[in-house]
């Protein structure tokens, strides 16, 4: 039994907070404010191939996102439970209730159907996300217009919004979720809990209903045990609330429709209240750009000419090139390791390029085993060249003073000492 309760914000037990619906300039865009909870909804459409087992039906896709600005606790990866719960409830409410006629979304059976995508973003979390989200979803779907399509035999023509007016979706009914919060094992119930009330509630009962008093979805969570007559009473309350909310939605849609038809101004700019002290508007402001050309010329005249860029790329092997010289190698000396392998035939070093490079540490890829790269000896250190067979991939080089390329040879190479390339 409900005694006379005082809620934090002064509402009565069955009172909803103020609902405010505003539309954007694109069709299918709306922002719903339930008290301070704010949800942005946008509907978009795309022509896709239908699902294999439902070749004549369009596809509906719902996505509710809890934006990180909605609450400090909403970080990516930390909201998954709540997110899954809300998304699933929304899907059951809108998809399973068949409020949208998916057969009408079919263009060419088995080949092309409309995919309607509803994206909802929670902008501010002050409790009762599911109600606000379900209102935003259904309002956005009712507001949305899809491009007109005509099928003549095999030919399908998709008209742009300029050619033919876009067409609204076929919506049978508008299911709206109503949430009930229970306290003290079902003793007290509150409709439309705000964030503080949600934190301390025992359980939540969500009933999705349309104005014809048909229950589309019902979900009880939190482990509360409700009596049959409590649930029945809640459904009656939900019926009343849904009727009020549906009327509000229809009025808002009608107003927007009227403004658009009369050519007045619509969009979010109009919904910013003029009289609020935190809101400010400025009209179209012409900017005097007559002197930009002179200013630009002055700046260019005074600027120094761009520095000469000398770019001399060095081709090590096919697939490996180098521009620039890199920085000094800060590694210590590589240990010498004696190699007592057989000497192959005369290994010739080909100097690809006679640029003197002071420093360089490169790890070069030997793309092909046929052309092992030798990066040449430094002036001070000895160069150890690993056998290409054993270490096919990389050779770490030390400071180089010139570059030499080895002739293709798979034979192990002897250590070379202090060889300097001619300049």
């Amino acid at each position: 039994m409900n005694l006379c309760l005082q809620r934090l914000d002064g509402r009565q037990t069955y009172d909803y907070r103020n609902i405010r619906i505003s539309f954007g300039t694109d069709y299918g865009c709306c922002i719903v404010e339930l008290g301070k909870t704010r949800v942005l909804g946008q509907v978009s459409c795309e022509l896709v191939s239908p699902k294999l087992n439902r070749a004549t039906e369009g596809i509906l896709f719902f996505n509710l996102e809890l934006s990180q600005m909605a609450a400090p606790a909403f970080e990516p990866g930390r909201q998954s439970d709540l997110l899954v719960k809300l998304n699933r409830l929304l899907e059951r409410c809108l998809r399973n209730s068949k409020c949208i006629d998916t057969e009408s979304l079919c263009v060419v059976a088995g080949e092309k159907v409309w995919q309607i995508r509803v994206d909802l973003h929670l902008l501010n979390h002050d409790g009762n996300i599911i109600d606000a989200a379900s209102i935003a979803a259904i309002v956005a779907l009712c507001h949305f217009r899809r491009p007109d399509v005509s099928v003549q035999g095999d030919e399908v023509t998709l008209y742009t919004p300029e050619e033919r007016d876009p067409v609204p979706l076929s919506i049978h009914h508008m299911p709206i979720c109503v949430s009930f919060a229970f306290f003290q094992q079902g003793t007290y119930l509150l409709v439309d809990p705000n964030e503080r009330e949600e934190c301390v509630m025992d359980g939540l009962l969500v009933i999705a209903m349309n104005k014809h008093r048909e229950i589309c979805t019902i979900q009880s969570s939190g482990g509360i045990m409700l009596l049959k007559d409590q649930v029945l009473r809640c459904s009656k309350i939900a019926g009343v609330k849904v009727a009020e909310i549906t009327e509000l939605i229809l009025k808002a849609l009608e107003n927007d429709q009227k403004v658009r038809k009369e050519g007045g101004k619509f969009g979010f700019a109009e919904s910013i209240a003029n009289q609020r002290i935190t809101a400010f508007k400025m009209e179209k402001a012409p900017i005097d750009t007559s002197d930009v050309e002179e200013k630009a010329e002055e700046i260019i005249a005074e600027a120094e000419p761009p520095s000469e860029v000398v770019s001399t790329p060095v081709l090590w092997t096919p697939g490996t090139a180098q521009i620039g010289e890199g920085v000094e190698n800060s590694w210590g000396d590589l240990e010498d390791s004696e190699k007592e392998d057989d000497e192959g035939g005369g290994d010739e070093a080909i100097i690809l390029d006679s640029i003197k490079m002071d420093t360089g540490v490169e790890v070069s890829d030997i793309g092909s085993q046929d052309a092992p790269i030798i990066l040449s000896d430094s002036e001070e250190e000895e160069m150890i060249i690993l056998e290409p067979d054993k270490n096919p991939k990389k050779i770490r080089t030390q400071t180089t003073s010139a570059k030499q390329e080895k002739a293709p040879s798979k034979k192990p190479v002897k250590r070379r000492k202090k060889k300097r390339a001619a300049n």
Partner: protein
Amino acid sequence: MEEEMHTDAKIRAETGTGSSPRGPGCSLRHFACEQNLLSRPDGSASFLQGDTSVLAGVYGPAEVKVSKEIFNKATLEVILRPKIGLPGVAEKSRERLIRNTCEAVVLGTLHPRTSITVVLQVVSDAGSLLACCLNAACMALVDAGVPMRALFCGVTCALDSDGTLMLDPTSKQEKEARAVLTFALDSVERKLLMSSTKGLYSDAELQQCLAAAQAASQHVFRFYRESLQRRYSKS
């Protein structure tokens, strides 16, 4: 064209039904800004430029994860969410541009080992989106009381095929333009904080666009100043 300022009557503004032609004297679209509209974030602002609208929320200075903390200054994070679909590479790149701009002005050294998070939500996109994001971020940072050394604003320029300069282009103008340049300018000396460009242009055109953006930024900063004056007029 006479500039009329009506604050309560119906005013001519750019609406979604096609853009009214803006002549060679370029102009900025109708601006609107509302601050402190969200109750949870520390600071929030909704910025509208014509039909482009971006909502920004700022949390900070707040606790930072140990993995992300910087010992001597605040960790600034920017998150941009598109309206439709999942965020992709374009959003990541814009996030980085906005973050670099904010880091240049926010006095992070006053709040070491904290995090300042700027969350941006695209509410509608009708051209000049990056500039609108920058403006919304700045107003939200001001609303949150984050210390900054200067305010910043974003201005977009578009160059069309005959070299005509357009400020604050609509999406149709951006699509048909040869080059689109966005600049972030600071309020103290109108210096350049960030520039992001797309398309072909000569260096003379770049300097012209920059000069035009600097001229436009004066209006934007005047708008900021007037809106803040209005907000604090009764305290």
